[in-house]
């Protein structure tokens, strides 16, 4: 390359351009992770699951004090677990890394290192990324289970890349797919007689802590908006004794608790119109924690500013582009309208075929009937019913605010959601049909996955052999 002659006009332009490039690069390198300029260092497009936090490089890469660059070799395994371990535990992971600590697997691990998340899930390689962030060919099961037909004759001749087909097997989560479960739910009706969702009472929305923090403080509302006061005074917060300062001046509330007075005057802490998630978390811990694990809250979880609708890769309403994702996005500040949060809030942003088809679906019709009192509570199906399922833990119930927890992959939804109302086979058939998902399940499934029948036949054969042995033994 021929360099410009010093002091010539061309040289000046050349210098300015180089300095500008160097300046932008340097700025991008040291800029906060909120800065879009950092994107120039991304080696490739990130997956659907991680693009929201792609500029927070250090969340996944452990660089040497910031002096070396992020690369595939310094991705931290515990970075994956920090966000995904809870869900893997809940899923009763079928292939935990510890399973392969047995030395007999040493040779298999040379073929496929099943102890590293990165063996199957790499980032920044969009050109070879499949669903669920899978970045190896779909035949990965075959490496270890190629002899499956020896013990499962029914699997003879099956394609080597068909194991993880919807309704058959998952690598991590088989809670609705393991053979005994399939057999036990064989023959169930499409719609169960006792189809009812878990009921949630308003008391169950807040943790017990709500009651503990209840005070007798009379809020200073002389200059408050009367409409806001009206809304608040008919809300669950009012009923639970949660007043203005507990959300808008939480530090003052702490001072009150320490000084035993009944007024906030004189404590000097600033009033904040914007209620932070941490304040909500004080009483709604599980809801907040699960929110942070889902796509709505994952940016907050790693210290980035809130997710903005405009950042979404899914189709969204253009008039919602400016909205940010926090508790108030779905739960209006002073009105506890969970019906709004369960449908209208979702449709206020989401603009894809599945979402748009909901209002014309039979699920939505049930929801309308429930709202008008024509059917019992717990029969209507909202967006939240499927994507933010209610979780019963002993005598307690809460709403899981991680809307991704039942979508990794989609049959994860079957056990916790679909089977509240539908038989297992019907549910697996439905989620196996991508077209049906597009139209928000507007008709019964037409295709049939064979796993339920196969498992049932397998157990039937064994039961018959067992009975035959018993008969011959008693003779």
């Amino acid at each position, binding site marked *: 390359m021929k360099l410009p002659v010093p002091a010539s006009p061309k040289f000046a332009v050349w210098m300015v351009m180089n300095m500008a490039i160097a300046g932008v690069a340097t700025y991008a390198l040291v800029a906060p992770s909120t800065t879009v300029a950092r994107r120039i260092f991304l080696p490739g497009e990130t997956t659907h699951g991680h693009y929201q936090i792609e500029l927070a490089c250090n969340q996944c890469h452990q660089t040497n004090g910031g002096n070396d660059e992020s690369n595939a070799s310094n991705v931290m395994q515990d970075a994956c677990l920090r966000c995904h371990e809870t869900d893997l535990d809940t899923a*009763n992971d079928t292939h935990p890394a*510890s*399973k392969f*600590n*047995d*030395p*007999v697997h*040493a*040779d298999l*691990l*040379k073929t496929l290192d099943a102890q590293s998340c990165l063996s199957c899930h790499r980032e920044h390689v969009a050109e070879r990324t499949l669903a669920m962030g899978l970045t190896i060919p779909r035949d990965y099961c075959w490496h270890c289970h190629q002899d499956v037909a020896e*013990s499962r004759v029914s699997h003879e001749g099956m394609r080597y890349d068909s194991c993880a087909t919807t309704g058959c097997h998952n690598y991590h989560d088989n809670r609705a797919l393991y053979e*005994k*479960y399939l057999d036990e739910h064989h023959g169930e009706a499409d719609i169960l007689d006792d189809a009812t969702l878990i009921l949630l009472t308003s008391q169950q929305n807040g943790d017990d802590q709500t009651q503990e923090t209840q005070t007798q403080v009379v809020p200073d509302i002389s200059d408050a908006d009367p409409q806001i006061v009206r809304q608040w005074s008919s809300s669950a917060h009012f009923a639970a004794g949660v007043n203005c300062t507990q959300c808008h001046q939480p530090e003052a509330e702490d001072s009150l608790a320490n000084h035993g007075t009944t007024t906030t005057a004189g404590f000097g802490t600033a009033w904040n119109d914007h209620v932070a998630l941490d304040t909500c978390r004080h009483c709604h811990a599980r809801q907040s924690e699960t929110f942070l694990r889902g796509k709505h809250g994952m940016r907050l979880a790693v210290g980035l500013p809130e997710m903005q609708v405009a950042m979404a890769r899914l189709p969204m309403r253009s008039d919602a582009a400016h909205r940010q994702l926090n508790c108030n996005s779905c739960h209006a500040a002073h009105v506890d309208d969970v019906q709004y949060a369960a449908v209208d809030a979702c449709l206020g942003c989401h603009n894809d075929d599945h979402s748009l088809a909901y209002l014309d679906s039979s699920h939505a019709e049930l929801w309308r009937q429930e709202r008008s009192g024509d059917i019992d509570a717990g029969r209507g199906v909202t967006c939240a019913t499927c994507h933010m399922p209610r979780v019963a833990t002993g005598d307690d119930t809460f709403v899981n605010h991680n809307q991704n927890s039942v979508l990794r992959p989609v049959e994860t939804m079957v056990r916790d959601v679909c089977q509240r109302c539908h038989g297992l086979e019907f549910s697996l058939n439905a989620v196996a049909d991508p077209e049906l998902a597009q139209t928000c399940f507007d008709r019964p499934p037409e295709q049939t996955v064979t796993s339920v029948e196969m498992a049932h036949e397998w*157990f039937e054969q*064994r*039961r018959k*052999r*067992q009975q035959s*042995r*018993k008969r011959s033994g008693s003779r």
Partner: protein
Amino acid sequence: MSFQSMTIQRIFFAVAGLSAVIVGTLSMTGCGSSEASSSSSGPTITPQQFADGVHAVMMADRTVYATHVVTNLKKQESVVTADEYWQDSDDAIPLPAQMFRMGAELVDENKEAGFTYALRSSWPLNEQHQAKTDLEKKALQYIVENPGDNFYGEEVLGDTNYFVAVYPDRAVAEACWTCHNDHPNRGDDYPEFEKDDVMGGVLVRIPLP
């Protein structure tokens, strides 16, 4: 406190005490195969002694669980039963073999443990308990053909040489052989097990320096 819970409590303390004594003894002697062999001062133990020691603890736990927990529940016609699918069943606890495997998995997670262990059988009801290597197959055959003897050997897996000990796993409680003989997964060539029959082997594997 009911008799049943008192019994279980005694069993718990007995097993915990035995475990503590053995683990404590091994710790004092610098156990862990590599340390044992490399230490130049103080008492040392061989990989075989180490394997025999941990096996003694395992079998004590396993026998107590099978005999005094699972069998006792059956005798008392308790609503609580040992069930293969205990995680998804009401009033259910793990089968003895599952309890054993869960313990092995916890040891697998502990990188400082210095050994792994597993159940193996020539007639596994669970495919995970099949012999995985040629040495394992040879060991299972040996303990069946030589009643009362343990098998000891070495094998290379990956880049590591391992000391391998395989101990006969006998039918110690009626619940063991009745459940196995009646299991729907058993094949046509499955033996009709009786008390003290060798149903498989307990394998202890220790990496050698």
